[in-house]
């Protein structure tokens, strides 16, 4: 796996000189921060109103502010990722093809699988680096809460977001391998994510039918919901890992077809 390591290092060093990575990370953190603040404020206000009502009518009424904030935050993070991940992946193969460096990689003594894994792991690492600062918000939330909210919500939430991100990255890199233009790759990736997002909405009329069930199953954010509620369900794990495997295998096929196409 020396080849994977070489590709990984190359990718990482390029990420940190490319403005796109900084813009994407900056945009993500700005949006995540904005929504976190908004959700927290709303949950706090709601809980205060509820407490006042409870005093007025003498009925006990409790709102789990940190829990609501976390659930809301992970949910909105999933949605933000659908917009940010295309920026992270659009160039990963398209730019190499445009610059002619794909030829360098593909004539180096490393396998196509090593190239695909190296690039995927690098994108995943960048994604985790992007996610890391949101932990700061969680630290503040945990410090300010009494009693401390259940850790389960936090851990499961992050696992869900990482799996979602991992699946989006694999699919995004595949789309990037299909074209020489990173703009086109970005647009197609975003359209694909949009489809996966709204597919349950599109087929909602046919609920109960096969198409309806398939649509429900494919919907990419639906599978995040269980994680957000603190539940790790194997069907969701299978869903995300299948998407990751699918993305990587398709990318590998795409590299193979580059060797057969007329250059």
């Amino acid at each position: 796996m020396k080849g994977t390591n070489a590709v990984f290092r190359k990718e990482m060093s390029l990420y940190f000189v490319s403005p796109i990575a900084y813009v994407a990370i900056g945009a993500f953190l700005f949006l995540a921060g904005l929504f976190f603040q908004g959700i927290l404020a709303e949950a706090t206000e709601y809980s205060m109103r509820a407490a006042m009502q409870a005093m007025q009518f003498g009925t006990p009424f409790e709102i789990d502010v940190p829990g609501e904030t976390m659930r809301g935050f992970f949910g909105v993070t999933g949605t933000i990722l659908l917009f940010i991940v295309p920026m992270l992946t659009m160039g990963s193969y398209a730019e190499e093809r445009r610059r002619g460096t794909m030829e360098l990689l593909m004539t180096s003594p490393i396998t196509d699988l090593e190239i695909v894994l190296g690039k995927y792991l690098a994108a995943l690492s960048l994604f985790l680096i992007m996610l890391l600062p949101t932990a700061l918000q969680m630290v503040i939330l945990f410090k300010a809460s009494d009693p401390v909210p259940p850790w389960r919500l936090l851990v499961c939430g992050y696992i869900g977001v990482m799996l979602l991100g991992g699946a989006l990255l694999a699919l995004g890199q595949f789309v990037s391998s299909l074209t020489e233009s990173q703009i086109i790759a970005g647009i197609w990736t975003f359209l694909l994510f949009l489809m996966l997002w709204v597919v349950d909405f599109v087929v909602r009329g046919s609920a109960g039918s096969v198409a309806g069930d398939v649509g429900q199953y494919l919907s990419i954010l639906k599978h995040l919901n269980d994680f957000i509620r603190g539940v790790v369900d194997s069907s969701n794990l299978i869903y995300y890992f299948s998407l990751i495997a699918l993305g990587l295998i398709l990318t590998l096929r795409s590299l193979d077809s580059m060797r057969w196409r007329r250059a």
Partner: protein
Amino acid sequence: MIEVENLTKQYGAVRAVDQISFRVDKGEILGFLGPNGAGKTTTMRILTGFLPATSGTARLAGFDVFENSLEVRKRIGYLPENPPLYPDMSVEGYLDTVARLKLLPSDRRKARVDAAMEMARVTEKRRELIKRLSRGYKQRVGLAQALVHDPEVIILDEPTVGLDPKQIIEVRHLIKGLAGDHTILLSTHILPEVSMTCDRVVIINQGRIVANTPVNAPGQDRGTEIVMVEVKPGGGGAGQVRTLLERIPGVKRVRTEPPEGTGRVQARVECESGRDLRSRIAADLVAQGHELLELRASRVSLEDIFLQATTQEPVEAGATEKIIAGGER
């Protein structure tokens, strides 16, 4: 070192490379000459393991390029037509990256990167970002990239394109200096490049090899000496001139053509190699009462071979010029 046998590459209905066979010995520089679209790049891409061939075999250092692709790739340094550069990296950082991709052991990496920069003369730009370099420097960084892992075989696709004349000479010197330890295959559509750099030339046209011949240094014997003569015949006309020339020992073939209406005869005399028959020809012609108007030595040049090989079909004069000069771009 490189053995290619009946290699064919088919793209749909188009045959880019058609049953070509050639070999390059260790330490040799082979020039791959041909007009654009002749199949040079395709052949090189097959050798580097970038493209699979449709049929035929290619072996490099004893390894089959299809079955042992990774072993072959370890031993090849390859500069594609457009140097594969990362514009946001520094020259040194880029070469280090390439050295890693070529799986060079870490203890040799630093020394090899320095050596490659020295050879390609980019050391003074080592810290500079590649995107800030001129075209000539970029090309040299591309060359350094092909050398960094000290490969046995170096494959260069049009290595001097886009360079100014001074840089072209530098690159040619560099390539010549690499021969011996390295086996080099370079492609070009520029004729003088081959005669200046290569030991042997393979001329390829429309996917087929049309000539495979050694290149000799200027002034050396090329197999056949040619003497062009123009005379005003005394008696007997063109026929007599022809018989006279054919009788001179050492002459292989004579072709005469009387230009119309001038009363003169032009003859192309092919002589055996290494024999300078000019004085004999002159003496004999004058002795028979012919007026000698012009006599000049000529030799079969690479250009003749190239033109002969690549213009089997009637081509307009202008188009022929273009092929020699590589008139595209």
